[in-house]
């Protein structure tokens, strides 16, 4: 007997929910509704994506020609630092958390997150952290020691502007936002699932969000500790990292990478989850190897804490230490590879529909494989000894960050936009965006593998006119501009589709999971009734049941 469960109303309305919808901006700012907060996270990600992208284009103009004088070295150093910091903390994190916060309650049949007010707090402290970081430009100069900010370069005597202090404080704030959101997500997933949805029946997106949240709350403290120590050094003359007085340059690197490596898994696991939803829906068959995909994410989360020193192979830790981290880094490649093969196997034998969302998902497979393979190159220590800190790394990281995280987020955007807004994103223009973005992206970064192998180090504001450098850098710059143009097209597509896109209906893709049960966009109270869940594809079951009762 398939029972429907009534979703209870809260005893008294949450503050902020009583604000009526014609109070415009006030409703948005004061909202504790997880859907509005999710959308605001995505808007923050978009705005900073444009800013970070502009920073990238400035860098590429400077690097378009050898011995260029478009930017001074000091300006370049601030720009490349802010580009990295912005993209990771103010684009990737909010994008991933935005989707997590919006769709987790919907996919588990809940009406809200566990702590709606803390949800709002997390959003705004993230935003203010970003503003504080950017305020540095108005307060004497941005941080200029790179996004990973190595010591002793990050100490006051080598970096005298206040930029790095703003970096530290801004990231402490955004970090608080991320950790509180993760705590919120974990409690929501543990306690707010609809009846019958056991943990091994969670939609894979929710499962990834769940594992990811644990990863996040375990990893951020290391960054917080490092930033706190840095502030003590810079403002109170402590001696954590200043080598002249007994501090340790390597301590920073250890603390930073103990955070930094899990961080990259933090920004990739939810996109893995998005893909695990997109592939089944657009192949019309369930995910291949659910248990393996779920288990591999746990493996990745655990291993993530055992690989950090692969960022430090050239630092002189010794062959034994290097070998250990080499082994663990190779090991972590296996669960990731398993996922890629499972997604391919999901498509095999299916009925593939090439929506823009699916196109990004398929493109991800190839781009992320390229990024993953170049990553494995680095796990082989002697190869790392040649290629670390070169443009080969820049290529690798952009293939996994853009080809992985961003492509996953874009697949999610095109998949879930109808649910969030009630309108379809224009598929035809979307396809144009897809091809322009993919060509631009590969044009920018594929050649950087070659630049690294030719000997070009990273984080240089210019380079000598050596054979091959000029032409490859020029191609990279042209690719970057193509990417930039395509992103502008994306903004236009989103704007136009919101204004007069085709009406979407509840379930435009014939989905398998609970978010498609409710209206598009969902009402304030997501569900009135949810069917008791008996399998991993509750909506599919419900539709089958309806089919049968009609016959």
């Amino acid at each position, binding site marked *: 007997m398939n029972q429907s469960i009534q979703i209870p109303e809260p005893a008294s309305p949450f503050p902020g929910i009583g604000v009526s919808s014609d109070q415009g901006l006030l409703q948005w700012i004061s909202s504790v509704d997880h859907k509005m907060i999710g959308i605001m996270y995505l808007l923050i990600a978009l705005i900073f994506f444009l800013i970070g992208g502009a920073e990238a284009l400035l860098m590429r103009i400077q690097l378009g020609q050898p011995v260029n004088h478009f930017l001074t070295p000091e300006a370049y150093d601030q720009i490349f630092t802010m580009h990295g910091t912005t993209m990771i903390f103010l684009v990737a994190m909010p994008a991933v958390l935005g989707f997590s916060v919006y769709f987790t309650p919907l996919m588990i049949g809940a009406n809200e997150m*566990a*702590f709606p007010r803390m949800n709002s707090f997390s959003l705004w402290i993230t935003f203010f952290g970003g503003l504080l970081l950017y305020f540095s430009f108005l307060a004497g100069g941005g941080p200029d020691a790179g996004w990973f900010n190595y010591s002793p370069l990050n100490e006051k005597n080598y970096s005298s502007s206040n930029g790095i202090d703003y970096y530290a404080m801004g990231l402490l704030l955004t970090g608080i936002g991320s*950790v509180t959101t*993760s*705590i919120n997500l*974990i*409690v929501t997933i543990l306690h707010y699932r609809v009846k019958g949805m056991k943990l091994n029946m969670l939609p894979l997106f929710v499962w990834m969000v769940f594992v990811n949240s644990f990863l996040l*709350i*375990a*990893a*951020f*403290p*290391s960054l*917080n*500790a*490092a930033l*706190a*120590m840095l502030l*003590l*050094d810079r403002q*109170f*003359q*402590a*001696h*954590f990292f200043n080598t002249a*007085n*007994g*501090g*340790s340059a390597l*301590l920073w690197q*250890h*603390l930073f990478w*103990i955070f930094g490596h899990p961080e990259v898994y933090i920004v990739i696991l939810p996109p893995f989850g998005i893909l695990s939803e997109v592939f089944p829906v657009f192949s019309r068959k369930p995910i291949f190897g659910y248990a393996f995909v779920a288990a591999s994410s746990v493996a990745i989360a655990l291993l993530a804490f055992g690989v950090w020193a692969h960022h430090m192979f050239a630092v002189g830790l010794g062959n034994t230490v290097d070998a250990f981290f080499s082994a663990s880094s190779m090991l972590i490649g296996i669960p990731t590879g398993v996922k890629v093969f499972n997604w391919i196997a999901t498509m095999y034998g299916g009925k593939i529909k090439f929506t823009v969302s699916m196109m990004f998902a398929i493109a991800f497979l190839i781009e992320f494989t390229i990024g993953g393979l170049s990553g494995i190159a680095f796990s082989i220590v002697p190869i790392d000894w040649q290629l670390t800190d070169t443009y080969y790394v820049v290529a690798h990281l952009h293939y996994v960050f853009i080809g992985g995280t961003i492509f996953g987020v874009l697949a999610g955007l095109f998949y879930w936009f109808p649910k969030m807004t009630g309108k379809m994103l224009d598929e035809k223009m979307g396809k144009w965006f897809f091809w322009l973005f993919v060509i631009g992206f590969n044009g920018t970064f594929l050649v950087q593998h070659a630049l690294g192998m030719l000997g070009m180090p990273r984080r240089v504001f210019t380079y000598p006119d050596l054979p091959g450098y000029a032409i490859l850098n020029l191609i990279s710059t042209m690719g970057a501009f193509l990417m930039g143009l395509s992103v502008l097209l994306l903004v236009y597509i989103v704007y136009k589709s919101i204004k007069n896109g085709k009406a979407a209906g509840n379930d435009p893709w014939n989905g398998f999971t609970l978010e498609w049960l409710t209206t598009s966009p969902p009402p304030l109270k997501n569900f009135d009734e949810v069917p008791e869940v008996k399998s991993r594809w509750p909506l599919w079951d419900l539709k089958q049941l309806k089919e049968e009762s009609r016959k």
Partner: protein
Amino acid sequence: MMKLVVGTEAMFFICLILAFIYMAYNTGFEPHDMKALDIKTTGIFTVILISSSFTFWIADKNYQKGKIKNLKIWLIITILLGATFLIGQGEEYWRLMNDKITLSSSVFGTSFYALTGFHGFHVFAGLVLLSIILVLTFFDDFNNTNSNVISTAGIYWHFVDVVWIAVFTVVYVLPQFTKY
């Protein structure tokens, strides 16, 4: 939820403790600095902090049995014990600073003050939390026993205690057995 908060803060303290140990073995601490630590007095204050955990546990038990008057009494005692610990820490800091051991005087100073300082700050935050709860008990907010606020606060308070045991062991006790 508090368990998750405790989890994340525990990672933070692990990082600080590891940094302390790293500094001890990498750069090394001055014997003069290490000898300045007063293990006996701090040991007494450690016992005081541990007993505050015990008194909180008693307060919680009373709350669950509905004995609100006892809840208030034992909460007050817990807060007083916690405050005493902080005063003791303050005295240790005062003495060390008079001995010219500060945050910027040496690597030991840096690691010591950061580690114990952040712990002290967490104790202070805990005292604020307990005081708010105490005030609310006087407003009769906890007359019913169906709230889990007290036990949640307990998780945090016990955590602060456990961290101190770890810090005390690493900073005061273990050096007695090693080269220091």
